[in-house]
């Protein structure tokens, strides 16, 4: 048995650590801005910084920049040590690092300028989607390469979590991002309406599962035992945890669409799997916490353990709350409210945030070979961070309940007690202020940590390559059982797993998706027609401005919703919606039946300054839509793209689309002129009014036939 000398790459770990801290600060600052914009609409500044654009920047930056880099930092550190091998290729590590940072910058810039696909947590446009896929595969190659060259035969449980992350995120991202490019930075998803919603939340749910949960569980199983210097409570339980979790997680997505136009059986399937998920999730939490059995005294004077304990507790809370929220009766209350915002921030701030901080406090002093600069500051970070989480989430729970119960309250006469949605918003604005306070406290903690880390790094010196030695892996002499046809696959499981997945996916998608989708886009409600060119352009403005961030287009079949908004939503209404815009949060009212509710002039004034029409409104003002000319150069291309996706426009309609567009625009501007508003019919405001007036009007004439 020969002892081999090699070294661990600490530099790449350090780089990811720096990126984690920088993007963490940026992402949380943007989040604080978004939080402040709700109680203080003046902070929406100009067209690029309205809430509808800031909020996707915040979510994308937290998930992919902060947690993403944090995940890579922890994986690159632990993977090498668990496998007793340096990363497969330093070059691939570098490409992965810089590629990912470029993607983040590209994402921030495009979202800022309004280039978005309009699908939550997958807002990035197609060139960036492709870049993500490439960089992710490079990460995968680097990881599997390291696994193949390992000097430790047993794959520690953390590695299994990493493998699940790499494979599944790739699949989710590719399936959800199948889109038809129209221009360089504009595309339409091939899925429409209900289908798009289903794909999106299959992705959305599993992104939480495989981007925010599994990699961090892997990190927990490495860094928690390391920090407390004792093995995990039950290694056997950790293995059961892993396999149970990944087999259950992927089926739970439909719980994001309860009471929507999704078929009931699909909803129930999602609920059942969500409830089952409690078992592995809590198994993991208990396993993490019990690792500290008999060592709780170490938590007192070990700051990274403090962070880990809160992180694992938050994981337990969020994974109990998640299944509860999947119960239809609970979901009826929580969906569209700030309860969900509280729920995700328990996960984001508590689980992902605190685990990342704990890892940083543990790891930076080690790779810089120096003690932590200040334990006091670290302790301060812990307490102010914990306080921040409480100040953030408790007001949000309160706001969620308050708003729900106001919205569903009827008077003795059977009419809504608060018919104006705005009343319920005004009621919870103080909660929004408290939430911003909580976020600020949390952010102060992060700044403290970064200062502490910089000081620590300065007082030490980075060990770029940490020497190690371990015996080489002995080759297993395979006794050939002749004739076993599956022998070959068993010997190369990892490569086979990857290759077969990619091959089958590409083949399957090329073959299946167009046939399935184009054929099925047969309208089920005969009165539902494709959007006119002007409405289509208006819809793209709606997507660009991120209106879906605050307004849903999905009326649930509850009396308190149909009384307020009108007839509940039908699946057949969305067959031309690329992308679907159901939304997931109502900071403002639902817009599915907005068409015809108000005159054009109301919309004009409301967009220019919402507070003139609705005093106390917290919606951003959109005066730039009145100034900006509508870009009609791409109308033809958009029509052609829609035709390719199966929308039944007449042949050669793209040639006359702009003429029809102007005709409709003139009608609207004439109507506005009659009401004393002079506006050029070429302005963007005309298009958005056209779209808003169209919303939900298709089936109004069909009400009688439907009732039968």
């Amino acid at each position: 048995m020969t002892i081999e000398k090699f070294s661990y790459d600490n530099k790449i770990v350090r780089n990811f650590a720096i990126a984690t801290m920088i993007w963490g600060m940026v992402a949380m600052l943007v989040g604080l801005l978004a939080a402040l914009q709700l109680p203080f609409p003046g902070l929406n500044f100009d067209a690029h910084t309205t809430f509808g654009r800031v909020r996707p920047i915040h979510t994308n930056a937290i998930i992919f920049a902060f947690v993403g880099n944090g995940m890579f930092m922890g994986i690159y550190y632990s993977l090498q040590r668990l496998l007793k091998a340096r990363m497969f290729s330093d070059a691939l590590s570098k490409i992965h690092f810089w590629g990912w940072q470029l993607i983040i910058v590209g994402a921030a810039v495009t979202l800022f300028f309004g280039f978005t696909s309009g699908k939550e947590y997958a807002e990035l446009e197609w060139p960036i989607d492709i870049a993500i896929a490439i960089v992710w595969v490079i990460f995968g190659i680097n990881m599997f390469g390291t696994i193949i060259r390992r000097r430790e035969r047993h794959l520690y449980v953390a590695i299994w979590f990493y493998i699940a992350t790499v494979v599944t995120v790739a699949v989710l991202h590719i399936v959800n991002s199948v889109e038809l490019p129209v221009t360089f930075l504009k595309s339409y998803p091939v899925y429409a309406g209900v289908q798009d919603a289903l794909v999106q939340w299959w992705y959305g749910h599993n992104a939480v599962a495989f981007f925010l949960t599994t990699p961090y569980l892997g990190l927990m199983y490495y860094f928690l035992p390391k920090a407390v210097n004792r093995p995990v409570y039950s290694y056997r339980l950790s293995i059961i945890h892993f396999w149970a979790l990944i087999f259950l997680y992927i089926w739970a997505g439909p719980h994001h669409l309860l009471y929507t136009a999704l078929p009931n059986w699909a909803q129930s399937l999602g609920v059942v799997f969500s409830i089952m998920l409690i078992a592995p999730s809590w198994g993991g939490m208990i396993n993490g916490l019990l690792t500290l059995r008999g060592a709780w005294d170490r938590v007192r004077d070990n700051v990274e353990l403090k962070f880990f304990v809160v992180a694992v507790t938050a994981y337990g809370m969020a994974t109990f709350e998640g299944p509860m929220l999947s119960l239809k009766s609970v979901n009826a209350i929580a969906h569209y409210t700030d309860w969900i915002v509280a729920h995700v921030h328990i996960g984001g701030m508590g689980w992902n945030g605190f685990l990342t901080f704990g890892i940083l406090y543990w790891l930076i002093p080690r790779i810089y070979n120096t003690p932590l600069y200040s334990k006091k500051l670290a302790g301060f970070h812990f307490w102010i961070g914990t306080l921040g989480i409480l100040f953030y989430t408790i007001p949000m729970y309160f706001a969620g309940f308050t708003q729900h119960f106001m919205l569903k309250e009827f008077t003795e006469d059977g009419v809504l007690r608060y018919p104006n949605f705005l009343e319920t918003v005004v009621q919870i604005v103080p909660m929004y202020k408290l939430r911003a306070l909580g976020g600020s406290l949390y952010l102060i903690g992060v700044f403290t940590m970064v200062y502490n880390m910089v000081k620590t790094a300065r007082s030490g010196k980075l060990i770029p390559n940490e020497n190690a030695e371990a015996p080489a892996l002995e080759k297993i002499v395979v006794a050939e059982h002749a004739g076993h046809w599956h022998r070959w696959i068993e010997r190369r499981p990892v490569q086979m797993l990857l290759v077969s997945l990619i091959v089958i996916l590409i083949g399957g998608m090329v073959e299946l998706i167009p046939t399935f989708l184009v054929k099925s886009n047969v309208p089920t409600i005969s009165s539902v027609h494709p959007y006119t060119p002007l409405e289509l352009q208006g819809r793209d403005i709606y997507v660009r401005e991120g209106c879906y961030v605050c307004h849903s287009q999905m009326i649930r079949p509850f009396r308190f919703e149909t009384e307020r908004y009108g007839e509940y939503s039908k699946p057949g209404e969305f067959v031309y919606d690329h992308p679907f815009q159901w939304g997931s949060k109502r900071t403002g009212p639902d817009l599915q039946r907005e068409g015809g509710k108000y005159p054009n002039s109301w919309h004009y004034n409301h967009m220019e300054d919402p507070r003139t029409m609705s005093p106390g409104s917290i919606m951003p003002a959109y005066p730039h839509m009145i100034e900006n000319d509508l870009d009609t150069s791409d109308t033809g291309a958009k029509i052609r793209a829609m035709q390719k996706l199966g929308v039944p426009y007449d042949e050669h309609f793209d040639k006359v689309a702009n003429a029809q567009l102007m005709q409709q625009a003139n009608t609207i501007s004439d109507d506005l002129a009659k009401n004393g508003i002079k506006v050029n019919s070429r302005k963007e405001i005309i298009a958005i009014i056209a779209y808003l007036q169209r919303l939900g009007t298709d089936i109004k004439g069909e009400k009688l036939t439907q009732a039968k």
Partner: protein
Amino acid sequence: MRSTGKFAVIMSVIIILILTSLLVAGAFLVTFFWAVRSGQYDDDYTPSVRILYDDKPESEVNPTKK
């Protein structure tokens, strides 16, 4: 109003999702069997202890522990 297409509208994409999910699950199942058969889980205690030891070369064992 046509009612025939309704099921198809919802169904078509769910087939893709279920197939994809089954594919992922199936791939993991194969891996699971590989892991069990190749003896990955024969020892369900030692690996948890092994990770606590670093592989510092004998020559430079320098206690950086806090």
